[in-house]
């Protein structure tokens, strides 16, 4: 039911999607019709999802949307109210946590404070028929893997947050689980460490080939790490897709708004390929819309193309046509954000609503864009997205 207008995919994404469709094996983890309610409150609403072996999947969504709840249902820590979960062909829906096959890392890391790093990592290895020497070797190997070989004799409290995080990860993968669950593993760290660890975790996951689910509310983290992202809101899955799909082809307004930034305008579909915003017509794909449907038009700041000071004649406000979606806009404010300029524009054609656009440093220099100037900008028709709007 949640169809946005579809735009032809960019060549890269076609390639990528096609490739995945062919190689994706039968699902390793399959969740179907999962519900979870706390009294009257429904925390998970009919969730169905399949995850392939070796995939890195992120659950992404705002706080309270049910990410942790879903993760804990998969882990058997909080039983779902309804629904089944298959892991590797085995029905684990009602198995206790200890009979499932996964390793988990919590936001708090939950390292045992009175055990050394080595003892923490060895905790899951003991009692499993392994000899002392075997365990020691495995612990050493894991410490090596996470790059903390020198810290084995220390206690958790003597390590930094990032180091503790890696120990928690090492402890979770020590028993070579089939599934790795990470609940906001990076959110307690500062920004720099976070970016660094992102790569480490991703590299480790690739190396081990372990199917991984990570919960996060940080879209950047999800885009950078995930093979596929599951965007959730209010206990429902809004969209599942690769980072580029999610970013470039959001299926719902929520996804569009949550991932990346948006300019939003109330719009009305005029005819096939034509939409009216304020009083002007813009061209864009209107698939799945009928003439007269109300809609919300969305364009991302980075997708707006500057064309320099332009032909004012074609663009007079009275004429309701905007060839190639070109409009005039006055630069109200410019903010230098290091990699690019963020500008606030007002366009008569958009009823003087603010339009936020991000221009590259180059473009700004080349086109001599400055505060107070009037420039012509293009809203590329394949980047102008339409979403249904309640009447």
């Amino acid at each position: 039911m949640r169809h946005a207008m579809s735009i032809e995919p960019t060549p890269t994404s076609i390639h990528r999607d096609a490739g995945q469709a062919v190689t994706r094996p039968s699902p390793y983890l399959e969740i179907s019709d999962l519900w979870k309610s706390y009294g009257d409150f429904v925390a998970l609403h009919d969730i169905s999802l399949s995850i392939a072996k070796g995939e890195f999947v992120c659950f992404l969504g705002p706080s309270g949307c049910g990410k942790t709840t879903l993760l804990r249902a998969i882990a058997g820590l909080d039983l779902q109210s309804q629904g089944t979960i298959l892991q590797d062909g085995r029905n684990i829906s009602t198995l206790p946590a200890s009979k499932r096959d996964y390793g988990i890392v919590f936001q708090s890391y939950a390292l045992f404070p009175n055990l050394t790093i080595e003892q923490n990592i060895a905790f899951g290895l003991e009692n499993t028929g392994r000899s002392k020497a075997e365990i020691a070797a495995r612990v050493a190997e894991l410490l090596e893997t996470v790059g903390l070989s020198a810290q084995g004799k220390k206690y958790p409290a003597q390590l930094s947050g990032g180091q503790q995080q890696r120990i928690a990860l090492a402890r979770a993968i020590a028993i070579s689980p089939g599934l790795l669950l990470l609940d906001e593993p990076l959110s307690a760290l500062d920004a720099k460490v976070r970016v660094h660890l992102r790569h480490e975790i991703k590299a480790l996951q690739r190396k081990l080939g372990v199917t991984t689910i990570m919960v996060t509310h940080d879209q950047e983290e999800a885009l950078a790490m995930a093979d596929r992202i599951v965007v959730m809101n209010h206990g429902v899955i809004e969209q599942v897709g690769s980072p580029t799909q999610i970013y470039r082809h959001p299926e719902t307004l929520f996804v569009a708004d949550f991932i990346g930034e948006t300019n939003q305008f109330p719009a009305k579909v005029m005819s096939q390929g034509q939409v009216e915003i304020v009083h002007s017509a813009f061209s864009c794909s209107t698939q799945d819309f009928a003439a007269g449907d109300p809609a919300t038009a969305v364009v991302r700041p980075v997708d707006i193309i500057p064309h320099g000071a332009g032909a004012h004649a074609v663009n007079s406000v009275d004429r309701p046509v905007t060839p190639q979606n070109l409009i005039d806009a006055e630069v109200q404010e410019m903010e230098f954000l290091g990699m690019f300029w963020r500008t606030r524009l007002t366009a008569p054609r958009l009823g003087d609503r603010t339009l936020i656009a991000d221009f590259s440093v180059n473009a700004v220099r080349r086109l001599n864009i400055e505060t107070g100037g009037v420039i012509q900008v293009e809203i590329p028709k394949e980047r102008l997205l339409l979403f249904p709007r309640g009447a």
Partner: protein
Amino acid sequence: MTMSLAIDYAPLGKPLRQEASRDDLVKMGFMAVIGLYLIIALGAPLSIMLSKSFSTYRFDLAAFEFQVSDETGETWGAPVTADALNRELGSVTDSELATSSDGRLAATKFFKDFSFRSPVRYRIRGTTDDTAFLVGSALEKGTQWREYDSGTFRRVVLRPASSLGFDNFKTYFSTPALARSIYNSALMAAISTVVTISIAFALAYGLTRSCMPLKGLFRGILTIPILVPSLLPGIALVYLFGNQGVFKDWLMGYSIYGPIGIVIGSVFFTLPHAFLIILTALSVADARHYEAAASLKASKWRTFTTVTVPGARYGIVSAAFVVFTLVITDFGLPKVIGGQYGMLAVDIYKQVIGQQNFEMGAVVSVILLLPAILAFAVDRRMQRRQVALLSARAVPYAPKPNARLDGLCLAFCCLVSLFILGMITMCQIAAVVKFWPYDLTLTAKNFAFDLMDGGGWAAYGNSIKLALLTALFGSLVVFTGAYMVEKADGFRACRGVFHFLAMMPMAVPGMVLGLAYIFFFNNPSNPFHSIYGTMTILVLCTVTHFYTVAHLTALTALKQMDPEFESVAASLKQPFHRLFFRVTVPVCLPAILNIAIYLFVNAMTTVSAVVFLYSTNTKLASVAVLNMDDAGDIAPAAAMGMMIFYTNVAAKLIHALIARGLLTRTQAWR
């Protein structure tokens, strides 16, 4: 697009149930065991006691029928009820018919010319199935005729019938000496509370808001009274202000035996409790409030009344309830120093031990339970709010030197310390001199306990045994129980009931618990009857008596542990007991040791609950203090009290040593 909002309900269907893991079964087993413990050690005895307070016993003469033979023993007269016989003879008055559960009435009373050598034979039966009588010690019941020769009939006694109702309470309230105790107890508790709280607040204020020196020392001195039985201040007061007391004149003719002694002694033994609670409340003061007051140029007094007192208000109220409850339920002190001044807790003792009137004891117990439960309920509410206050991030307040205030606080702390040390010193002197205050030669004769009644050195040995067992067994049960309440997921309802049971002992006075134990365990049909009169029942009773504080200590420690430890262990497929022994217990070790020492000290000093339960083989030091004092051997009583004090001081020191040793070895991570 959130169309989903419109259909936000889960489909109806059988809710899923998680398959039980082995851990779950083990946990369930533990819960069952400890739940059973709390029911046997607390719930069941209390409910039996409650029912006893509503049971009245009365000889129902109409329910017995007799038949008498002639001299030949062959021809029988007509059956006649005891009631009819009594109407004829008037040998038993109506008031003699009201009795207790233990009441016995000789059957021969109804036969004027009974002679145990005559050849006349007697028959007796009940008219209902429940009618009971004893032949010697054998119980007979029912409507079957039973025939005895006169020699045996002499040993037949009738047993009363029981009925439920408020009669016991009516009797209680119509006995002025008893009913007056309610007023007395409430009055004593109220006065002691006001005095104690004032002193405790001033002390806590001095220790937190002034820069007076020696704070650590005063803290130590102020907690001394916890280490002695509440009988001891009573004995000290007898020596100081009693008939031979050196300071007798200070009382201007009033006697120390009675209200004055009770109040002074109560202040002594409740002071540490109030002091510690208020100290905690004042310690969490927010410096920002003081800065605000200073910037508004508020006067010292105004700052005090608008910032200090309201900030500690929950602590003060909480401390007030604790003191009130302690005084109203205490038995040792009024027993020693109360004289003829009737107090509820002593009434229970007198009714049960003196008059063997268990039902009346139960009535007084129920009356004593009411204020204790009320105080407990209010206190719990207060504590909940106090927690909310605590969790707000506050900037700790650091006092600035102020010569006048500091001097004043120091003087006051010295004064109170003098009072506490004076009382202890008095007992110490009394214990080691021949005859205070006339012959002050040093002697060890007061420590020759084996020469006096009370239990001798064996009693002291028993007390140590009790304290050790209570500390060991108690910390085990309490900590495991608290772990189940806090960490076992699922079993929500079970855990709720469990927690409630664990909180209850706080509201149950020791006397009441002891009496409830008599009712419950001294019943031959109880499967646990065999522990009656043994050390086991003393340990059981003491652990239960002091359960709540220990439980709360354990809970606090457990709440500080990451709630995900259990999840991590499950994901690593490790059984919960490995986590429990390798992580939970070591991390909580300081709290466990605190629980152990708390139980030890209290087991050494407690009198109220165990006074009903000790037997000749299990006499206790604290009870010996009571009994020796009762018998007039006051100096040996003081000596035994001091033995308890020395033991507790030693235990505290050992605890500190062990704690430090263990901490450096097992808690390197801190």
